[in-house]
């Protein structure tokens, strides 16, 4: 399989890991922004290959995890209405709202459907003119173009029974918020490769300059991640703070211009609440004036939503990188993938679920020492 197996070569990975060990002279904290990267790091055991003093901090880039509880509750309320076909990507179905999840709405007779593309939801609207079809449009810049296209097409096809429940969030404002937060310890970022495939990375040089941090555009395969980490460590060790592209087979500086112009037409920047973090100014998209008619929040006036997060859940601290999942008192006890208290335990991209699923049998010490076992000890 071209472009996949080449980037999963164990021998090359070991060589790159050795190089990172040689480069590293002191402890560094590097945040991978994207949940897909977190998943890949844990699944492949990349964290076990790194020097013990390099800490990968798992960022807020899991769309399932940061979608605010209020919006999940709105989704549950809309999906439960008769006459509605509620479409969503699969992993939103198990995210706990205040009372239950979309699976339960489906179990009670709600028409909840998993689709692989928002365009499938547009087709459903065309085929079911007497039903209201709602697509749950969550995610970062990566999923936004297809969601924008769905509204664009629905408008062009005159489908008045299609609407989008939007909760789009943006990476650069999140980086800004994390770097500006009190007690921040993150010293470098791996930018999310797929976000940059859409947006390019022209938004990042001002951030690298403002906060004096290396930002490396990084892919998702094991060798992509090791290359991203290697470049970040090299910059840190050499005292540089530049934007580098370690994912050039997919990402260009400008990004996908056609997608960007569609996004600019369909969406406008707005303040957004991030679950577990709070409101970050200008950190999301909502439908622009021209497309406001397709906003499910406008079409279904859902009021009286009172949200309640579990007081035991520390997912906000996990998403900011302030604590590791296993440091949460509820981790693996009250909170498991079987019974998640917070969204980070739901999606396979959520840091808590990734930890629980893939590293559970190792103690914290074993996980920490596993990396240094492959080469000489690197002292803090």
């Amino acid at each position, binding site marked *: 399989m071209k472009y996949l197996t080449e980037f999963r070569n164990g021998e090359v990975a070991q060589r790159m890991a050795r190089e990172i060990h040689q480069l590293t002279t002191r402890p560094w904290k590097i945040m991978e922004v994207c949940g897909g990267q977190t998943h890949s790091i844990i699944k492949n055991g990349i964290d076990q290959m790194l020097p013990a003093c390099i800490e990968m901090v798992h960022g807020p880039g899991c769309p399932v995890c940061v979608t605010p509880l209020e919006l999940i509750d709105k989704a549950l309320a809309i999906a439960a209405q008769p006459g509605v076909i509620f479409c969503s990507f699969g992993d939103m179905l198990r995210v706990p709202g205040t009372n239950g999840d979309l699976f339960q709405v489906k179990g009670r007779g709600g028409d909840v459907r998993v689709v692989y593309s928002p365009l499938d939801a547009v087709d459903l609207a065309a085929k079911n003119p007497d039903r209201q079809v709602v697509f749950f449009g969550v995610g970062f810049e990566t999923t936004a173009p297809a969601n924008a296209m769905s509204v664009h097409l629905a408008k062009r096809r005159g489908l008045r029974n299609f609407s989008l429940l939007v909760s789009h969030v943006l990476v650069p404002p999140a980086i800004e918020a994390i770097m500006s937060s009190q007690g921040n310890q993150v010293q470098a970022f791996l930018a999310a490769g797929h976000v940059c495939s859409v947006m390019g990375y022209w938004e990042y040089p001002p951030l690298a300059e403002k906060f004096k941090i290396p930002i490396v555009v990084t892919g998702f395969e094991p060798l992509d991640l090791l290359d991203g980490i290697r470049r970040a460590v090299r910059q840190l060790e050499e005292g540089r703070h530049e934007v580098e592209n370690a994912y050039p087979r997919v990402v260009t500086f400008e990004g996908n211009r056609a997608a960007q112009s569609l996004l600019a037409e369909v969406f406008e920047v707005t303040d957004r609440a991030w679950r577990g973090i709070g409101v970050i100014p200008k950190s999301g998209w909502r439908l622009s004036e021209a497309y406001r008619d397709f906003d499910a929040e406008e079409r279904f006036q859902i009021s009286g939503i009172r949200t309640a997060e579990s007081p035991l859940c520390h997912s906000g601290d996990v998403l900011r990188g302030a604590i590791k999942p296993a440091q949460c008192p509820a981790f693996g006890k009250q909170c498991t993938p079987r019974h998640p208290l917070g969204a980070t335990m739901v999606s396979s991209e959520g840091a808590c679920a990734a930890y629980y699923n893939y590293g559970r*049998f190792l103690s914290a010490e074993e996980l920490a020492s596993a990396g240094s076992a492959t080469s000489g000890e690197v002292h803090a």
Partner: protein
Amino acid sequence: MPDKPAMPDFANWSCPLPLADYPTIVMGHGGGGKLGNELVEHLFLPAFRNPALENLGDAAVFDLGSSRLALSTDSFVVQPLFFPGGSIGELAVNGTVNDLAVSGAVPRFLSASFILEEGFPLAQIAAIADAMAKAAAHAGVRIITGDTKVVERGHGDGCYINTAGVGVLRPEVTIGPHLAQPGDAVLVSGTIGDHGMAIMSVREGLEFESQIRSDCAALNGLIAEVLDAVGPNVHAMRDPTRGGLASTLNEIAIASGVGIAIDETMVPVRPEVQSACELLGLDPIYVANEGKAVFFVAPEVAGRVLEILRAHPLGREAARIGHVTTEHPRMLVARTAMGANRVIPTQIGEQLPRIC
């Protein structure tokens, strides 16, 4: 046992908490993962408790007169009814044949019950019956009883089939999911994930350069050859259907109280199945198979079993994928291509496609 039927006492279920999370049935209860296991353990098992059931094998094994018999039943609700590589008809026969075969039995007789929806075309039932007849002949079993029910339009999905099967246990074998032993070699009879991805591709309208076909097949011939040669050295067998290889290996690790270590790079996966899984955000180790078996055998016969499997048309891509260990009991741990280790847990319910 009380002699009058009683309403279930919700407050005194052996473990009310997990069920209380979902007071109604959700799709995940049928996904071959933890939710389904909990339904069996906390609801059905307490209700029906008896020694033959408690093994929770693919088939129940029991004595009747001087015979040791195996009995198994399975319902088939696949959509679409016809898919590349088979149909609900072949599945209904082969699924029950395989459940008997992996229990160490020689499958003999099957029942077949049909639940048909008003309006369902007779031509399709004929095609399904034809497929079942051919599959039964091929597997050497006879369908000797059956039933037909019709439900009103909208109350079924065209055609559901239930089959039950009886087989005679081979005298020389002692096989069970609880009998895997430390040191055992773990073998799989071929590529994994073919059936699940064939169904997913049709359902989602995905098209690939080469079509993914279901691996639906009766495994009793293949298994008989292994048991003829090294029967007493086979400790556990299973066909990894719903929930995939991961669920099967986890079930055996738990039932036997052992750890299972596999080498991820040794697990055979077709490139087109791997590609489809990448595209949909799925892991082939959790995807269903309908014509594969996993064998736990004494290490000294592992090479021999692999030769036998590879000489059989259904086992050409068989592979030795790991071993049983006393370390990490009740857990499945995979060595990744990067040389690191990861736990492969039982999934909760259905495997959900990821967003990005």
